[in-house]
């Protein structure tokens, strides 16, 4: 079990290694635009080759990713392999992992309690996030009813869901249209049988929603500790996209397509991902 988790983590980190690398090359090349103006595609790729970001920088970015996205095991192993100092506060990473696992597993009440244990300020001040978690919990209650064998659940089966919605979600609903709409849609899940649902309702039952909320929760916890709410690499990728867009708008001579190295299609483009993993 533990081994499996580690594997999964390592896979993540390879993934990252590739993307960071390409990214760093491209962004640092774009920075002096005046020289690029005069360069050709060939010189662009040459410049990319010339830029050798330091290994330790890349490792730092990977480490940062592992810590902020919550992969304590991988972070520890990665620290050993690269001689980087290990994550300072392993316990806080594990806290976040527990919260994330609870959300992924659909155990929302547990997740809420865990968050409140870390810092009650998080949910007390971020009403939207709190509402999302409660909405997810309502969805889970409905899901269990829908999942029951038998074609049509009786109306009374939904009573716990209605009670939960009345007590937990509806007080907030009139304060903002976005709450109201979310609540109405969620309640509609009790009306339509799953197979007749339109995509907008179906996505509520999709487990992807849990993942989305889990990411938000992770961000909020990091923010509450005054840390960066996002892994550095996400910012770097955004910066890269922005720079590319700006450069193209300024009519800088760039290759039409600069691979990011994240998708399988990119790898076909010649970047040999595995070679870059330490």
């Amino acid at each position, binding site marked *: 079990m533990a081994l499996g988790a580690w594997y999964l983590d390592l896979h993540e980190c390879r993934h990252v290694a590739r993307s960071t690398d390409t990214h760093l090359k491209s962004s640092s090349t774009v920075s002096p635009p005046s020289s690029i103006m005069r360069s050709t595609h060939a010189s662009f790729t040459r410049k990319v080759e010339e830029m050798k970001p330091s290994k330790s920088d890349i490792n730092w970015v990977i480490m940062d990713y592992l810590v902020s996205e919550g992969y304590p095991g991988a972070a520890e192993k990665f620290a050993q392999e690269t001689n980087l100092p290990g994550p*300072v*506060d392993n316990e*806080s990473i594990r806290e976040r992992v527990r919260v994330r696992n609870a959300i992924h597993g659909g155990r929302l009440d547990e997740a*809420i*309690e865990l968050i*409140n*244990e870390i810092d*009650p*300020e998080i*949910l*007390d*001040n*971020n*009403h939207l996030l*709190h509402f999302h978690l409660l909405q997810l919990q309502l969805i889970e209650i409905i899901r269990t009813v829908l999942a029951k064998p038998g074609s049509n659940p009786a109306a009374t089966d939904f009573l716990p869901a209605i009670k939960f919605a*009345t*007590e*937990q979600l*509806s*007080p*907030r*609903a*009139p*304060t*903002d249209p976005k709450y109201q709409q979310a609540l109405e849609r969620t309640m509609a899940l009790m009306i339509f049988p799953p197979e007749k649902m339109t995509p907008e309702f179906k996505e509520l039952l999709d487990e992807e929603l849990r993942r989305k909320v889990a990411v938000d929760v992770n*961000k*909020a916890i990091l*923010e509450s*500790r*005054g*840390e960066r*709410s996002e892994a550095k690499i996400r910012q770097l990728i955004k910066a890269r996209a922005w720079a590319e867009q700006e450069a193209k708008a300024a009519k800088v001579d760039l290759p039409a397509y600069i691979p990011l190295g994240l998708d399988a299609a990119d790898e076909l483009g010649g970047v040999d991902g595995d070679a870059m993993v330490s």
Partner: protein
Amino acid sequence: MADTLGAIYHMGSMEALPEVELEAQATAIRKLKNEIVGHDQRKERLVCDGVVDMLVGVLSSHQRTTGSRKSEANGPAPATWSWTQKDEVRLQATFIVCTLANGGAAFIPPLLAAGVPQVLMDLLAQTTAPRLRTATLQALWNIVSAWSALQEDPGEAVSAVRTDILTKQGIEVLSGILRSTLADGAHNQQLQLRLIADIVSVSATTEAIKVLLCQSPILDQFADFLAAHSIASEHVEYYGDTLRPPLSTPATITKMMSAICTIISGSTYRAHRFFLSPTIRDLFTQSWLASSDQRHLFGARHGFASTGEPLLPLLHIPAYGTTTHHYGSRAFPAMAALQNQERRGHSVFESITQGGDVDHVNAVCRWLLLLARSMQGHSRLVALKLLALVNNAVDADSFDVGHRSEYMQKNRERKKQIALLGVPLAAKLVQVASEGRSSGRDRSAEHDDMLVKEQACDVLALLVRDSDELQVAAVDAGAIKHVCPILKKSFDPVPLAKPMWSARRIPGNADPASLPPTRRPGSQGLPLETLHAMRCRQGALQALAALAEKEDVHRKAIVEAGVVPCIFDSLKPFPPDYSTDDKRRGQVVGPKDGNTTAVLLAACRAAKTMARSVSLLRTSLIDAGIAKPIFQLLHHADPEVQLAATDACINLLLEFSPMREDLIAEGVVKTLCSQAKRCGPGSANGDLRLRVSSLWALKHLMSASPREIKIKTLEELGSGWLIGVVRGEQQHAREYVSAPGGGVSVGLSAPNAAGERVDLLNPQSSGMDVDVDEADPLAEDDDEQEYGNDDACANDEEGDGEVMFDISSSTHYQASQLRSTLNNHHHPPTSPTATQVPAFNSRRYLSSVRAIEQTPAVRAQQAEVAVQEQALDFIRNLLNGEDCASMFDHLLQLIAGARIFEVLTEKLVPVAIDPATGSGGATTSTRPIYGPSALIISTVNILTHIANALPRHKQLLIAQKPLLKAWLPHFNHPDRKVRVACVWAVNSLTWIDDESDRRDARQRAQELRACGIEGAVRRLLGDEDLDVRERARTGVRQFEQL
């Protein structure tokens, strides 16, 4: 929920409980916490059920149980901290306090009624567990922040409710935490630092708390963090060894700067205390390896090049003139008469300003500029605010030192740098706020944007206040263009959050008054959206007030932006029947319904500065009907609002103001007179500002008014009262002067007629040697005491006795010459231009700044002088104009002539004889000390008016021998305005009204000659001032014609 509560109650106090039950208690409280987090309605119910008492019980039982192992908060945390169940219970209870306080203003009254802040502070003093400490600080911060929103609520008289967190002990605890290096991870430490800074910056609202904070080490500690941050970010190269930089994140630094701003705001002394704090001094004296002073590298020309490369853009600021023409342009000396730059009420500063260390001040300002430039958004704004506070404090302290050109030039450099590098940054932030640009989408960025919106205008106003140069710079950077939309926008209706829904009816407590205060939630206060609009509005009005302060062009631009109606709307308070409880009945208070007190104050200020324009008074301001709301505000319950409204009235009552008639019709005379008389004459320490402003307004009303108005006003005030005010507290002043031990000598504080600025505390020493000795009432229980008395300094003073001013020598009439004489005495070989103050001693300097600001006697004296000046000017304007003669006759009827002249003589004679002089060397003659020049000018002007009345009045005046005798020394007054006034009066006296008066006029001239006044006028023919020379020439001609 109620049953959980009951269960917790039943468990009883913690000490008796075994571990198992403690665990159950912890679980129960945790469950309660999970119930209410994010659910405001449940919080309210819980409070009604009595949760607050339960929390106090749980939290304070802690103190009893842990009394034995009470560890000081100051010491380092024990290496092995074992987390006990008791700690867990406390942690969960603290979390509940956090959550309740997050519920908003409504929860503050019950929490305060139960004394929760105090309990938390005690807890903080005793715990070292990092988690518990963080949670406690968080709870305190939540309480304080909700409390501060409540302060702005106009409906409640809650300003009396205090949190009592920043008591002497409380501050010690916080400072202890700042000092301790926490064994805990960096995260908790930073969070704690931030929370402490936040608590300080929001709850230090009163002067008393700020003074306490300033006395505690906390201000220096914040300064240390700031300095350490600068070293870490390589703004300065630092070679000293006293700084041990603790690491702190940029967010923490911002909060600390904002805490510093709060502490030092409102006091020149505290601002000095900040930038002269040891680490900040060190920062700029230890930033090079060589032993010589390299601080010029921080200068404009070198662009803060401590690390080798210039960090600020280089500026070449041409040297200004070299001498004493600070009264105006050298090319047009006559303009000097129109450009009086002397600032009121600061004359006492003069004697010590030369001790100020201008290089250090400049380095600090540049450093703050650098900090602002290196930051973004709200952090940048806070850095600019700190810069503004420091710069203003320096300005307040360094007026009228024109005779030291080097000093002037350095001051100019600082001003210029701020104008070119600081003001545009602030204006840019105002633009960002005005355009509603967002810096990001996450919550912290949104919060940052909101703070910028609320504070950008305010900071701009603070930065450019009192300086026309900076005001022009701000307008050049587009300030008016961006401020006005903010003001307009603040009146837009905002979508207010709708109330929450509840399945149950909110239990209508039959009679809320029957509940104990700890179970009774208060009102929710203004909606947050409305509060935000109010803060934006207040800031925008402040900015307009500051921009319109000096330049008429700016005022016109503001009018053209179409915001005068907005100023009008901002003068309207919330209706008296307003109450936030109405919200329950569905009535919600929006931004158009009224204005908070802060907005009213700012609007009055804006109206005041806008009304300085004559043309606007006659056009847009009268069109907007600005007089009526201001008149109504004169009756506002808040004394500060009354004062601001009175100030705004002053300009509306000028003779060319079309609003004068309306205001008189409304009954402004009666109101102002009763305001002027309100504070009893016996209350020397009372707040005299309202009296000054009211008299000022009445004084304006007197000029060129119809006779009936003048007589009616005089009647309303009462001539006896008026004379009483003019005579003032002079007797008190005399007593101070003769106080033994050379302590506080108030009468000495102002420039005397002989021209010497007499040192406030130690009359016989030079400005540098000011020290607070034991006779100073302030020396007790203050932070300076630990430094002890400087013996060397005391000896210095002894030796100074012989450097006395000799009244018979005419060469000593200029303060500058006197100063150089003193300096030459100390350092005979140095040339006058190179004369430097001895090594700067910041402690002594600080104590002198403080003595001037905080000595009650000095402050009372300043207020008293201001009142007397206005009262004298009131009489002066009363006598001015066509009906001068009849008004004087009227005055003579009310008050006996002898009495009037007696009072006027009193103003001219020396207020004291300096007793210390006798102890000096050769000179045994005593040195007279005269009243402040403002009073002398007013008095002499009254003489001019009397002399301008009928011939018999002239004769009456000339018969006053003691008056003439007292008048004589003032012909040599160092202030040119006094000299001009004196000559004018003589000119009036020697004027021949008609043929029948010729004989009398000749006799008057003889009298004047006999008492030496003619000679004095002749001597003024060689005066340095053109205006004085010209008047004197007329005077001499008139003498000769007789």
